[in-house]
């Protein structure tokens, strides 16, 4: 395979894990809730997908089961943070610890078993014939298309082109005003937080069904935290999040290609590339483009529980 095609292929596959988790986090943060439980949800999703495909060898069933498990844990998290107004950071950390621990315990029975069913590449006619780009972007599995095309477009449309999306953003910016306007703040937050958590678990299932097809404890290896960081880096926009994840995947893959081609750079430095790259991509545009400084960053009510009676 051509070296650039190979680079892009792994970048898309690796970036997809981050993109899916980060899309879930965008939904969650846009309604004003920080979910730091992504790492734990990914672990749960990964182990669920493996466990389910062992009894039902169909990757779609495994993926759906992971979404469902994510939804359930998301509802528990939303109940604590949205309905009972507990501290979001603490609950998120608890969810990460519980998720990774529970996944490790449940996963004991499944470690060392290859995934019984995985998503196979679906080749898009015509588009996959484009030189260099075609094989990397249009000969991937269905989850890649879902993550890079279908979901971001759908979420972008929902958030920025519909009345419902406007309401959603209002809940994240100023829940008091939204409430006064008759938007069901708590219901909105509850369901979008749960949905975001489902996508995070879906990212875990992506990991074990399409990328590294087996379960082992620690398989997520910190990618959940990177997904949370990417959301901030991408300024809470679904399209940007996907591009940021792809960029991150590309720079990571570049580090390995650099080692494989024996560039005269220390491996430790090449391993740092994604983080150095992210820093550059955050700092440089802000310095170069004046306009970037004025862009609104986080939703104004991010991280704050909503109390109707305390204004």
């Amino acid at each position: 395979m051509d070296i650039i095609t190979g680079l892009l292929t792994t970048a898309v596959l690796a970036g997809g894990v981050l993109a899916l988790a980060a899309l879930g986090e965008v939904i969650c943060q846009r309604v004003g809730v920080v979910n730091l439980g992504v790492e734990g949800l990914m672990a749960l999703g990964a182990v669920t997908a493996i466990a389910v495909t062992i009894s039902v060898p169909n990757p779609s069933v495994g993926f759906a089961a992971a979404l469902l498990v994510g939804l359930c844990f998301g509802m528990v998290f939303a109940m604590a943070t949205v309905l009972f107004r507990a501290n979001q950071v603490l609950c998120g950390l608890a969810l990460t610890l519980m998720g990774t621990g529970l996944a490790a315990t449940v996963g004991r029975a499944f470690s060392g078993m290859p995934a019984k069913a995985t998503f196979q590449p679906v080749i898009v006619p015509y588009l996959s014939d484009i030189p260099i780009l075609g094989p990397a972007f249009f000969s991937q599995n269905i989850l890649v298309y879902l993550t890079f095309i279908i979901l971001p477009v759908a979420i972008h449309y929902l958030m920025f082109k519909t009345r419902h999306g406007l309401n959603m953003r209002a809940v994240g910016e100023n829940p008091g005003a939204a409430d006064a306007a008759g938007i069901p703040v708590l219901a909105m937050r509850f369901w979008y937080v749960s949905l975001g958590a489902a996508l995070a678990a879906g990212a875990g299932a992506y990991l074990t069904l399409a990328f590294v097809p087996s379960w082992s404890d620690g398989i997520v290896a910190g990618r959940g935290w990177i997904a949370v960081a990417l959301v901030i880096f991408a300024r809470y926009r679904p399209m940007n999040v996907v591009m940021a994840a792809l960029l991150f995947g590309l720079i990571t893959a570049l580090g390995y290609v650099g080692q494989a081609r024996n560039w005269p750079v220390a491996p430790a430095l090449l391993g740092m590339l994604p983080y150095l790259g992210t820093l550059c991509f955050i700092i440089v545009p802000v310095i170069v483009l004046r306009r970037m400084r004025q862009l609104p960053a986080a939703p104004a009510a991010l991280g704050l529980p909503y109390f109707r009676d305390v204004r």
Partner: protein
Amino acid sequence: MNFQYSFSRRRFLALSAAASSSLIMPGWVGKAGAAPLAAIKEEDAIIAFGLTGPVSDEGWNTKQNEGAKAIQAAFPKAKTLVVESIPFSADASRTFRQFVQEGAQMVFSTSNYGDFFASVVERSPEVAFLEADGRRVADNLGWYYAAHWHPTYVLGVAAGLLSKSGKLGFIASFPVPMAISSSNAFMMGARSVNPSATLQVISINSWFDPQGANQAASALIDNGCDFLFGVMNEASYLQVAEQRGVRAAMWSSDMRRYGKNAYVSSIIPDWTAFYVDQVRKRLEGTWSGGGQTLLPLGGGIDRDAWGETVPAEVAAKADAVREKIIGGWSPFTGEIKDTTGAVRVKAGETLDEVALYNWDWSVEGVSGLST
């Protein structure tokens, strides 16, 4: 893979010092100068194991746990304690101290926990300690490891015969002696049958990161490598090799179910005989500190049964080399050049086992790990 090294500056300095010092005694089993510790009755015996990861990892820790089980089977009245997933932090000290408080008379540290372990060893002179991949000895402390470079050389011979492109790939964790000796032995084995073979190493800066190993494997294959080896404890690069139609050799356990066409063999340690022997000595009152043990090929470390796509003549040629090594021949005999082409081992000289254990330079043909 939860191997042996936490790569810290202090650790690196200690290793460099060990490598450059000639004070360490050569040989399979080093000095045992101290007075033996007193005998224990079997029913009073408590043997403790500190593990780096879960016993279900299908790799290093599974094998260590098999050792613990073998002890339990051999001495049914004794009690064994196994603690999994001990982090490389002050928690390690706490765990080892706990073993001592619970009355353990013998403690196995299945990885090198450095000073976290040493501090407990110093305070408990009546307890016998054994450290895998250790470098230090004391009156109550010995170290042990396996001479993995010998079976690795055998796999290298097979790789040299099986590779069409002559480009081999290696997925390492960090540039530490374990990875260096492993890649060197693999390269020397391959070059013994294909003098133009080369080995490209990628360090993924982790002992366990399936996603990283997966990407590293893709990068190596894209670059023309058609045989992968590494020091990872999991099968992700084997799965990539299977998908891409190249071959791979593994570490720690039989992983052929992850890729039956790609699987060539694996380096498999077996600690059971050594552990049972050490415990027996401790119970009899003949165990003493200072032991330095490297389990030999065929006696604690070996290759796995060949994969089903390995041609019989390749297996036969590699096995002939294996027999020769078991018979006492060392493949690590000069002239050996380093990556700059300088002769590091003169013709006729042989690197001894401790020098191989502490190997800190790459041989000619290996790129990416160290100079």
